[in-house]
Protein backbone atom coordinates (compact mmCIF):
# COMPACT_ATOMS: atom_id res chain seq x y z
CA UNK A 1 0.00 0.00 0.00
CA UNK A 2 2.82 2.35 0.97
CA UNK A 3 4.51 1.63 -2.38
CA UNK A 4 1.34 2.48 -4.28
CA UNK A 5 1.04 5.82 -2.47
CA UNK A 6 4.70 6.55 -3.09
CA UNK A 7 4.23 5.80 -6.80
CA UNK A 8 1.12 7.95 -6.99
CA UNK A 9 2.96 10.81 -5.29
CA UNK A 10 5.82 10.45 -7.79
CA UNK A 11 3.37 10.29 -10.71
CA UNK A 12 1.66 13.42 -9.41
CA UNK A 13 4.96 15.29 -9.12
CA UNK A 14 5.98 14.29 -12.68
CA UNK A 15 2.64 15.43 -14.09
CA UNK A 16 2.92 18.71 -12.17
CA UNK A 17 6.45 19.29 -13.49
CA UNK A 18 5.28 18.67 -17.08
CA UNK A 19 2.28 20.93 -16.55
CA UNK A 20 4.44 23.73 -15.17
CA UNK A 21 6.81 23.67 -18.16
CA UNK A 22 5.81 26.35 -20.59
CA UNK A 23 7.95 25.42 -23.57
CA UNK A 24 8.39 22.24 -25.58
CA UNK A 25 11.96 21.54 -24.48
CA UNK A 26 10.96 22.17 -20.85
CA UNK A 27 8.13 19.63 -21.12
CA UNK A 28 10.49 16.99 -22.54
CA UNK A 29 13.17 17.76 -19.95
CA UNK A 30 10.59 17.57 -17.13
CA UNK A 31 9.69 14.04 -18.24
CA UNK A 32 13.18 12.92 -19.27
CA UNK A 33 14.79 13.87 -16.00
CA UNK A 34 12.07 12.44 -13.74
CA UNK A 35 10.64 9.26 -15.29
CA UNK A 36 13.31 7.05 -13.73
CA UNK A 37 11.86 8.00 -10.32
CA UNK A 38 8.78 6.03 -11.29
CA UNK A 39 9.89 3.39 -13.80
CA UNK A 40 12.87 1.04 -13.96
CA UNK A 41 14.15 2.30 -17.26
CA UNK A 42 17.51 2.73 -18.92
CA UNK A 43 16.18 5.25 -21.42
CA UNK A 44 13.24 7.49 -22.21
CA UNK A 45 12.80 8.50 -25.86
CA UNK A 46 10.46 10.84 -27.66
CA UNK A 47 10.13 11.51 -31.37
CA UNK A 48 8.19 14.59 -32.43
CA UNK A 49 6.31 14.76 -35.70
CA UNK A 50 7.05 18.44 -36.20
CA UNK A 51 10.66 18.73 -37.41
CA UNK A 52 11.30 15.01 -36.59
CA UNK A 53 13.30 15.78 -33.44
CA UNK A 54 14.26 12.66 -31.49
CA UNK A 55 15.16 13.13 -27.82
CA UNK A 56 16.77 10.23 -25.97
CA UNK A 57 17.42 10.47 -22.22
CA UNK A 58 19.70 7.58 -21.16
CA UNK A 59 21.22 6.37 -17.97
CA UNK A 60 25.00 6.80 -17.93
CA UNK A 61 25.38 3.02 -17.87
CA UNK A 62 23.61 2.54 -21.23
CA UNK A 63 25.67 0.78 -23.87
CA UNK A 64 25.98 2.04 -27.42
CA UNK A 65 24.12 -1.07 -28.55
CA UNK A 66 21.23 -0.28 -26.23
CA UNK A 67 20.98 3.35 -27.35
CA UNK A 68 21.02 2.31 -31.04
CA UNK A 69 18.22 -0.16 -30.29
CA UNK A 70 16.17 2.59 -28.59
CA UNK A 71 16.63 4.93 -31.54
CA UNK A 72 15.64 2.28 -34.09
CA UNK A 73 12.66 1.09 -32.09
CA UNK A 74 11.35 4.61 -31.45
CA UNK A 75 11.52 5.34 -35.18
CA UNK A 76 9.80 2.04 -35.96
CA UNK A 77 6.96 2.72 -33.52
CA UNK A 78 6.57 6.27 -34.81
CA UNK A 79 6.27 4.92 -38.37
CA UNK A 80 3.68 2.41 -37.19
CA UNK A 81 1.59 5.11 -35.52
CA UNK A 82 1.78 7.68 -38.29
CA UNK A 83 1.95 5.32 -41.26
CA UNK A 84 4.90 7.37 -42.55
CA UNK A 85 8.15 5.82 -43.68
CA UNK A 86 10.94 7.71 -41.94
CA UNK A 87 14.43 7.99 -43.29
CA UNK A 88 16.71 8.04 -40.20
CA UNK A 89 18.77 10.78 -41.86
CA UNK A 90 15.77 13.12 -41.67
CA UNK A 91 15.82 12.86 -37.89
CA UNK A 92 17.66 15.22 -35.57
CA UNK A 93 18.92 13.16 -32.62
CA UNK A 94 19.41 14.80 -29.23
CA UNK A 95 21.04 12.47 -26.73
CA UNK A 96 21.18 13.33 -23.01
CA UNK A 97 23.09 11.08 -20.59
CA UNK A 98 21.78 11.20 -17.01
CA UNK A 99 22.20 9.28 -13.78
CA UNK A 100 18.85 7.51 -13.49
CA UNK A 101 17.32 6.30 -10.24
CA UNK A 102 16.32 2.92 -11.69
CA UNK A 103 17.12 -0.27 -9.78
CA UNK A 104 18.85 -1.79 -12.79
CA UNK A 105 21.98 -0.50 -14.43
CA UNK A 106 23.19 -1.33 -17.91
CA UNK A 107 26.29 -3.26 -18.89
CA UNK A 108 28.56 -2.90 -21.89
CA UNK A 109 26.56 -5.48 -23.84
CA UNK A 110 23.06 -4.35 -22.75
CA UNK A 111 20.43 -4.48 -25.46
CA UNK A 112 16.90 -3.17 -25.67
CA UNK A 113 14.70 -6.00 -24.41
CA UNK A 114 11.39 -4.37 -23.49
CA UNK A 115 9.59 -1.12 -24.05
CA UNK A 116 6.27 0.68 -23.89
CA UNK A 117 5.58 3.20 -26.65
CA UNK A 118 2.56 5.45 -26.70
CA UNK A 119 1.43 8.01 -29.26
CA UNK A 120 1.27 11.62 -28.12
CA UNK A 121 -2.21 12.60 -29.24
CA UNK A 122 -4.18 15.77 -28.78
CA UNK A 123 -7.63 16.27 -30.27
CA UNK A 124 -7.11 13.25 -32.53
CA UNK A 125 -3.84 14.58 -33.97
CA UNK A 126 -0.55 12.74 -33.53
CA UNK A 127 2.19 15.00 -32.16
CA UNK A 128 4.75 12.20 -31.86
CA UNK A 129 5.43 9.15 -29.75
CA UNK A 130 7.16 8.53 -26.43
CA UNK A 131 8.80 5.33 -25.15
CA UNK A 132 10.06 3.81 -21.93
CA UNK A 133 12.96 1.45 -22.64
CA UNK A 134 14.64 -1.28 -20.60
CA UNK A 135 17.39 -3.86 -21.05
CA UNK A 136 15.35 -6.38 -19.02
CA UNK A 137 12.67 -8.64 -20.46
CA UNK A 138 9.10 -7.97 -19.29
CA UNK A 139 10.22 -4.86 -17.43
CA UNK A 140 6.79 -3.22 -17.63
CA UNK A 141 3.43 -4.28 -16.24
CA UNK A 142 -0.14 -3.02 -16.53
CA UNK A 143 0.38 -0.40 -13.82
CA UNK A 144 3.44 0.99 -15.61
CA UNK A 145 1.35 1.27 -18.76
CA UNK A 146 -1.46 3.05 -16.88
CA UNK A 147 0.97 5.53 -15.34
CA UNK A 148 2.83 6.12 -18.58
CA UNK A 149 -0.41 6.72 -20.48
CA UNK A 150 -1.38 9.42 -17.94
CA UNK A 151 2.04 11.02 -18.39
CA UNK A 152 1.84 10.97 -22.20
CA UNK A 153 -1.67 12.50 -22.06
CA UNK A 154 -0.31 15.33 -19.97
CA UNK A 155 2.70 15.74 -22.24
CA UNK A 156 0.54 15.91 -25.37
CA UNK A 157 -1.81 18.39 -23.78
CA UNK A 158 1.05 20.61 -22.51
CA UNK A 159 2.75 20.43 -25.92
CA UNK A 160 -0.41 21.57 -27.66
CA UNK A 161 -0.77 24.39 -25.15
CA UNK A 162 2.85 25.44 -25.69
CA UNK A 163 2.29 25.43 -29.48
CA UNK A 164 -0.69 27.77 -29.07
CA UNK A 165 1.29 30.12 -26.79
CA UNK A 166 4.23 30.07 -29.17
CA UNK A 167 2.06 30.86 -32.21
CA UNK A 168 0.41 33.70 -30.27
CA UNK A 169 3.85 35.08 -29.39
CA UNK A 170 4.83 34.70 -33.03
CA UNK A 171 1.78 36.65 -34.18
CA UNK A 172 2.53 39.40 -31.67
CA UNK A 173 6.13 39.67 -32.89
CA UNK A 174 6.27 39.00 -36.63
CA UNK A 175 4.63 40.44 -39.71
CA UNK A 176 2.71 37.51 -41.20
CA UNK A 177 3.54 38.36 -44.83
CA UNK A 178 7.24 39.19 -44.74
CA UNK A 179 8.19 37.33 -41.51
CA UNK A 180 10.07 40.48 -40.45
CA UNK A 181 9.40 41.96 -37.00
CA UNK A 182 6.09 43.83 -36.92
CA UNK A 183 5.53 47.45 -35.90
CA UNK A 184 4.51 46.51 -32.37
CA UNK A 185 7.71 44.59 -31.72
CA UNK A 186 9.76 47.30 -33.44
CA UNK A 187 8.38 49.92 -31.04
CA UNK A 188 9.53 47.84 -28.06
CA UNK A 189 12.99 47.13 -29.47
CA UNK A 190 13.60 50.69 -30.64
CA UNK A 191 12.48 52.06 -27.28
CA UNK A 192 15.05 49.84 -25.59
CA UNK A 193 17.86 50.59 -28.07
CA UNK A 194 17.12 54.31 -27.89
CA UNK A 195 17.21 54.31 -24.08
CA UNK A 196 20.46 52.31 -23.99
CA UNK A 197 22.04 54.58 -26.56
CA UNK A 198 21.12 57.84 -24.80
CA UNK A 199 22.13 56.51 -21.37
CA UNK A 200 25.44 55.03 -22.45
CA UNK A 201 26.19 57.63 -25.17
CA UNK A 202 26.60 54.82 -27.70
CA UNK A 203 25.94 55.44 -31.39
CA UNK A 204 22.66 54.19 -32.86
CA UNK A 205 21.37 54.53 -36.41
CA UNK A 206 18.03 53.87 -38.06
CA UNK A 207 17.17 53.61 -41.75
CA UNK A 208 13.68 54.21 -43.09
CA UNK A 209 13.11 52.34 -46.36
CA UNK A 210 10.30 52.86 -48.87
CA UNK A 211 9.69 50.95 -52.13
CA UNK A 212 9.60 53.34 -55.11
CA UNK A 213 6.48 53.33 -57.27
CA UNK A 214 4.86 50.54 -55.28
CA UNK A 215 1.28 51.58 -55.99
CA UNK A 216 1.64 51.11 -59.79
CA UNK A 217 2.91 47.54 -59.15
CA UNK A 218 -0.25 46.77 -57.16
CA UNK A 219 -2.47 48.52 -59.72
CA UNK A 220 -0.89 46.90 -62.76
CA UNK A 221 -0.17 43.36 -61.55
CA UNK A 222 -2.56 42.94 -58.62
CA UNK A 223 -2.11 42.61 -54.86
CA UNK A 224 -0.57 39.13 -55.00
CA UNK A 225 2.32 40.47 -57.06
CA UNK A 226 2.50 43.47 -54.71
CA UNK A 227 2.87 41.05 -51.81
CA UNK A 228 5.64 39.25 -53.72
CA UNK A 229 7.46 42.57 -54.06
CA UNK A 230 7.22 43.16 -50.29
CA UNK A 231 8.58 39.67 -49.58
CA UNK A 232 11.36 40.21 -52.13
CA UNK A 233 12.50 43.47 -50.48
CA UNK A 234 12.20 41.92 -47.00
CA UNK A 235 14.46 39.07 -48.06
CA UNK A 236 17.10 41.44 -49.46
CA UNK A 237 16.98 43.54 -46.29
CA UNK A 238 17.48 40.46 -44.09
CA UNK A 239 20.34 39.26 -46.27
CA UNK A 240 22.14 42.61 -46.30
CA UNK A 241 22.37 43.18 -42.55
CA UNK A 242 24.64 42.10 -39.72
CA UNK A 243 23.27 39.49 -37.32
CA UNK A 244 22.67 42.05 -34.58
CA UNK A 245 20.83 44.55 -36.80
CA UNK A 246 17.03 44.58 -36.59
CA UNK A 247 14.70 44.94 -39.53
CA UNK A 248 10.96 45.36 -39.36
CA UNK A 249 7.99 46.14 -41.54
CA UNK A 250 6.98 49.65 -40.54
CA UNK A 251 3.69 49.63 -42.43
CA UNK A 252 2.49 49.42 -46.06
CA UNK A 253 5.59 49.42 -48.26
CA UNK A 254 7.82 50.99 -45.58
CA UNK A 255 10.49 49.20 -43.55
CA UNK A 256 12.63 50.37 -40.67
CA UNK A 257 16.12 49.08 -39.95
CA UNK A 258 17.80 49.55 -36.56
CA UNK A 259 21.60 49.53 -36.61
CA UNK A 260 22.88 49.33 -33.02
CA UNK A 261 26.29 50.86 -32.18
CA UNK A 262 26.54 52.30 -35.69
CA UNK A 263 27.74 55.80 -36.65
CA UNK A 264 26.10 57.82 -39.41
CA UNK A 265 28.93 57.22 -41.91
CA UNK A 266 28.71 53.44 -41.45
CA UNK A 267 24.90 53.46 -41.54
CA UNK A 268 24.98 55.32 -44.85
CA UNK A 269 27.36 52.69 -46.29
CA UNK A 270 24.99 49.90 -45.18
CA UNK A 271 21.97 51.77 -46.58
CA UNK A 272 23.74 52.31 -49.91
CA UNK A 273 24.64 48.59 -50.04
CA UNK A 274 20.97 47.69 -49.52
CA UNK A 275 19.85 50.17 -52.21
CA UNK A 276 22.29 48.73 -54.74
CA UNK A 277 21.33 45.16 -53.88
CA UNK A 278 17.61 45.88 -54.47
CA UNK A 279 18.36 47.71 -57.72
CA UNK A 280 20.38 44.83 -59.11
CA UNK A 281 18.21 41.91 -57.98
CA UNK A 282 15.38 41.34 -60.45
CA UNK A 283 11.93 40.19 -59.33
CA UNK A 284 9.61 38.08 -61.48
CA UNK A 285 6.26 39.86 -61.66
CA UNK A 286 3.75 38.12 -63.89
CA UNK A 287 5.71 37.19 -67.02
CA UNK A 288 8.16 40.05 -66.63
CA UNK A 289 11.41 40.61 -64.76
CA UNK A 290 11.28 43.88 -62.84
CA UNK A 291 14.10 45.68 -61.08
CA UNK A 292 12.55 47.45 -58.12
CA UNK A 293 14.18 50.45 -56.46
CA UNK A 294 13.95 51.85 -52.96
CA UNK A 295 14.54 55.21 -51.28
CA UNK A 296 16.23 55.34 -47.89
CA UNK A 297 16.47 57.92 -45.12
CA UNK A 298 19.12 57.60 -42.41
CA UNK A 299 19.21 59.22 -38.96
CA UNK A 300 21.89 58.54 -36.36
CA UNK A 301 22.93 59.28 -32.80
CA UNK A 302 25.26 61.13 -32.04
CA UNK A 303 24.84 63.15 -35.29
CA UNK A 304 21.59 64.20 -33.62
CA UNK A 305 20.24 63.82 -30.07
CA UNK A 306 16.48 63.41 -30.43
CA UNK A 307 14.32 63.65 -27.30
CA UNK A 308 12.36 60.50 -28.08
CA UNK A 309 12.30 57.51 -30.39
CA UNK A 310 9.34 59.11 -32.20
CA UNK A 311 11.46 62.18 -32.95
CA UNK A 312 14.30 59.90 -34.07
CA UNK A 313 11.96 58.13 -36.52
CA UNK A 314 10.70 61.49 -37.74
CA UNK A 315 14.28 62.52 -38.60
CA UNK A 316 14.76 59.34 -40.68
CA UNK A 317 11.39 60.00 -42.31
CA UNK A 318 12.43 63.54 -43.25
CA UNK A 319 15.59 62.15 -44.85
CA UNK A 320 13.48 59.56 -46.70
CA UNK A 321 11.19 62.26 -48.13
CA UNK A 322 14.26 64.18 -49.21
CA UNK A 323 15.38 61.05 -51.13
CA UNK A 324 11.93 60.81 -52.75
CA UNK A 325 11.98 64.52 -53.67
CA UNK A 326 15.42 64.19 -55.24
CA UNK A 327 14.12 61.55 -57.67
CA UNK A 328 13.99 58.29 -55.62
CA UNK A 329 16.39 55.32 -55.68
CA UNK A 330 18.84 57.05 -53.38
CA UNK A 331 20.04 57.35 -49.79
CA UNK A 332 19.69 60.65 -47.89
CA UNK A 333 20.70 61.33 -44.32
CA UNK A 334 19.34 63.73 -41.79
CA UNK A 335 21.39 66.91 -41.23
CA UNK A 336 20.33 68.71 -38.05
CA UNK A 337 21.58 72.16 -39.06
CA UNK A 338 19.26 72.18 -42.01
CA UNK A 339 16.28 70.86 -40.12
CA UNK A 340 13.53 70.13 -41.08
CA UNK A 341 14.84 69.16 -44.51
CA UNK A 342 17.61 66.61 -44.92
CA UNK A 343 20.28 67.82 -47.29
CA UNK A 344 22.85 65.06 -47.35
CA UNK A 345 22.46 63.19 -50.61
CA UNK A 346 24.81 60.31 -51.13
CA UNK A 347 23.95 58.63 -54.38
CA UNK A 348 22.82 59.83 -57.81
Amino acid sequence: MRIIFKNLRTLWSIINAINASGELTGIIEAAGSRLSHLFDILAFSILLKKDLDLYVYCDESSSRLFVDGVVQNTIKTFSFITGERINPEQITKRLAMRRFESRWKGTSDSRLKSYISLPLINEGKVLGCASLNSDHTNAFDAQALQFFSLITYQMASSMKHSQIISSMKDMATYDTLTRLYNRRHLDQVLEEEFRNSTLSKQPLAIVMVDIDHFKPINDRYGHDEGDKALIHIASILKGSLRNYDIVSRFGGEEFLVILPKTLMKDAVVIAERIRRSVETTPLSVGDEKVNLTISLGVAAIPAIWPDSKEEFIKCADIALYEAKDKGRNRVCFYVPTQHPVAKGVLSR
Partner: protein
Amino acid sequence: MRKKKTTANLDLIDLYSRLLNEIWGKVSELIGESLLAFLILLTIDRISDKFPILREIRVSEAGISLETMRSQCQDASPEDLHRSFQGFVKSLFNSFTALAANVINRELLSTVLPKLREAEKMISR
Protein backbone atom coordinates in the same frame (compact mmCIF):
# COMPACT_ATOMS: atom_id res chain seq x y z
CA MET B 1 -32.44 -19.12 -46.31
CA ARG B 2 -31.79 -15.36 -46.28
CA LYS B 3 -33.52 -15.05 -42.92
CA LYS B 4 -31.32 -17.82 -41.51
CA LYS B 5 -28.22 -16.07 -42.80
CA THR B 6 -29.30 -12.75 -41.29
CA THR B 7 -29.99 -14.37 -37.93
CA ALA B 8 -26.57 -16.03 -37.96
CA ASN B 9 -24.97 -12.68 -38.81
CA LEU B 10 -26.83 -10.90 -36.02
CA ASP B 11 -25.75 -13.58 -33.55
CA LEU B 12 -22.14 -13.14 -34.66
CA ILE B 13 -22.39 -9.38 -34.38
CA ASP B 14 -23.80 -9.76 -30.87
CA LEU B 15 -20.92 -12.00 -29.91
CA TYR B 16 -18.26 -9.69 -31.35
CA SER B 17 -20.03 -6.67 -29.89
CA ARG B 18 -19.68 -8.21 -26.43
CA LEU B 19 -16.05 -9.12 -27.14
CA LEU B 20 -15.12 -5.67 -28.41
CA ASN B 21 -16.84 -4.00 -25.47
CA GLU B 22 -14.88 -6.19 -23.08
CA ILE B 23 -11.67 -5.28 -24.89
CA TRP B 24 -12.71 -1.63 -24.70
CA GLY B 25 -13.38 -1.90 -20.95
CA LYS B 26 -10.04 -3.55 -20.15
CA VAL B 27 -7.78 -1.58 -22.48
CA SER B 28 -9.35 1.82 -21.81
CA GLU B 29 -8.50 1.28 -18.14
CA LEU B 30 -4.87 0.86 -19.17
CA ILE B 31 -4.38 3.55 -21.80
CA GLY B 32 -7.50 5.75 -21.66
CA GLU B 33 -10.43 6.16 -24.02
CA SER B 34 -9.04 8.64 -26.52
CA LEU B 35 -5.82 6.71 -27.15
CA LEU B 36 -7.75 3.48 -27.52
CA ALA B 37 -10.26 5.08 -29.91
CA PHE B 38 -7.30 6.34 -31.95
CA LEU B 39 -5.74 2.86 -32.11
CA ILE B 40 -8.99 1.18 -33.11
CA LEU B 41 -9.63 3.73 -35.86
CA LEU B 42 -6.02 3.32 -37.04
CA THR B 43 -6.50 -0.45 -37.20
CA ILE B 44 -9.81 -0.21 -39.07
CA ASP B 45 -8.26 2.25 -41.50
CA ARG B 46 -5.41 -0.15 -42.28
CA ILE B 47 -7.46 -3.28 -42.92
CA SER B 48 -10.78 -1.95 -44.21
CA ASP B 49 -9.71 -2.36 -47.83
CA LYS B 50 -9.45 -6.08 -47.17
CA PHE B 51 -12.54 -6.23 -44.91
CA PRO B 52 -14.87 -3.39 -46.04
CA ILE B 53 -17.65 -4.33 -43.60
CA LEU B 54 -15.39 -3.07 -40.76
CA ARG B 55 -16.07 0.50 -41.95
CA GLU B 56 -19.46 0.12 -40.29
CA ILE B 57 -17.86 -0.06 -36.83
CA ARG B 58 -18.45 3.21 -34.98
CA VAL B 59 -15.75 4.34 -32.55
CA SER B 60 -15.55 7.40 -30.32
CA GLU B 61 -14.24 8.18 -26.85
CA ALA B 62 -17.62 6.98 -25.60
CA GLY B 63 -16.94 3.45 -26.83
CA ILE B 64 -17.32 1.07 -29.74
CA SER B 65 -20.62 0.28 -31.43
CA LEU B 66 -21.74 -2.27 -34.04
CA GLU B 67 -25.30 -0.95 -34.32
CA THR B 68 -24.80 0.42 -37.85
CA MET B 69 -23.31 -2.89 -38.90
CA ARG B 70 -26.48 -4.74 -37.84
CA SER B 71 -28.50 -2.98 -40.52
CA GLN B 72 -25.78 -3.37 -43.16
CA CYS B 73 -24.90 -7.03 -42.78
CA GLN B 74 -27.69 -8.77 -44.76
CA ASP B 75 -25.54 -9.27 -47.85
CA ALA B 76 -22.49 -10.63 -46.06
CA SER B 77 -22.05 -14.35 -45.44
CA PRO B 78 -21.49 -15.37 -41.81
CA GLU B 79 -18.09 -16.77 -42.83
CA ASP B 80 -17.00 -13.43 -44.35
CA LEU B 81 -18.28 -11.56 -41.34
CA HIS B 82 -16.41 -13.88 -38.99
CA ARG B 83 -13.20 -13.58 -41.06
CA SER B 84 -13.52 -9.79 -41.01
CA PHE B 85 -13.83 -9.70 -37.24
CA GLN B 86 -11.05 -12.23 -36.81
CA GLY B 87 -8.81 -10.09 -39.02
CA PHE B 88 -9.79 -7.02 -37.02
CA VAL B 89 -9.07 -8.59 -33.61
CA LYS B 90 -5.75 -9.95 -34.89
CA SER B 91 -4.72 -6.54 -36.26
CA LEU B 92 -5.79 -4.87 -33.03
CA PHE B 93 -3.61 -7.27 -31.07
CA ASN B 94 -0.74 -6.51 -33.45
CA SER B 95 -1.23 -2.79 -32.76
CA PHE B 96 -1.15 -3.42 -29.01
CA THR B 97 1.98 -5.56 -29.42
CA ALA B 98 3.72 -2.87 -31.47
CA LEU B 99 3.18 -0.38 -28.66
CA ALA B 100 3.46 -2.34 -25.46
CA ALA B 101 4.81 -5.81 -26.31
CA ASN B 102 2.62 -8.22 -24.33
CA VAL B 103 1.47 -5.91 -21.54
CA ILE B 104 -1.97 -5.28 -23.06
CA ASN B 105 -2.38 -8.68 -24.71
CA ARG B 106 -1.64 -10.49 -21.43
CA GLU B 107 -4.63 -8.70 -19.89
CA LEU B 108 -6.85 -9.64 -22.82
CA LEU B 109 -6.10 -13.24 -23.70
CA SER B 110 -8.41 -14.76 -21.10
CA THR B 111 -11.28 -12.68 -22.48
CA VAL B 112 -10.64 -12.98 -26.16
CA LEU B 113 -9.72 -16.61 -26.74
CA PRO B 114 -12.98 -18.18 -25.42
CA LYS B 115 -15.09 -15.79 -27.48
CA LEU B 116 -13.11 -16.48 -30.65
CA ARG B 117 -13.61 -20.21 -30.06
CA GLU B 118 -17.32 -19.63 -29.54
CA ALA B 119 -17.48 -17.74 -32.85
CA GLU B 120 -15.68 -20.61 -34.60
CA LYS B 121 -18.27 -23.04 -33.23
CA MET B 122 -21.10 -20.79 -34.34
CA ILE B 123 -19.75 -20.74 -37.89
CA SER B 124 -19.17 -24.46 -38.10
CA ARG B 125 -22.71 -25.26 -36.95
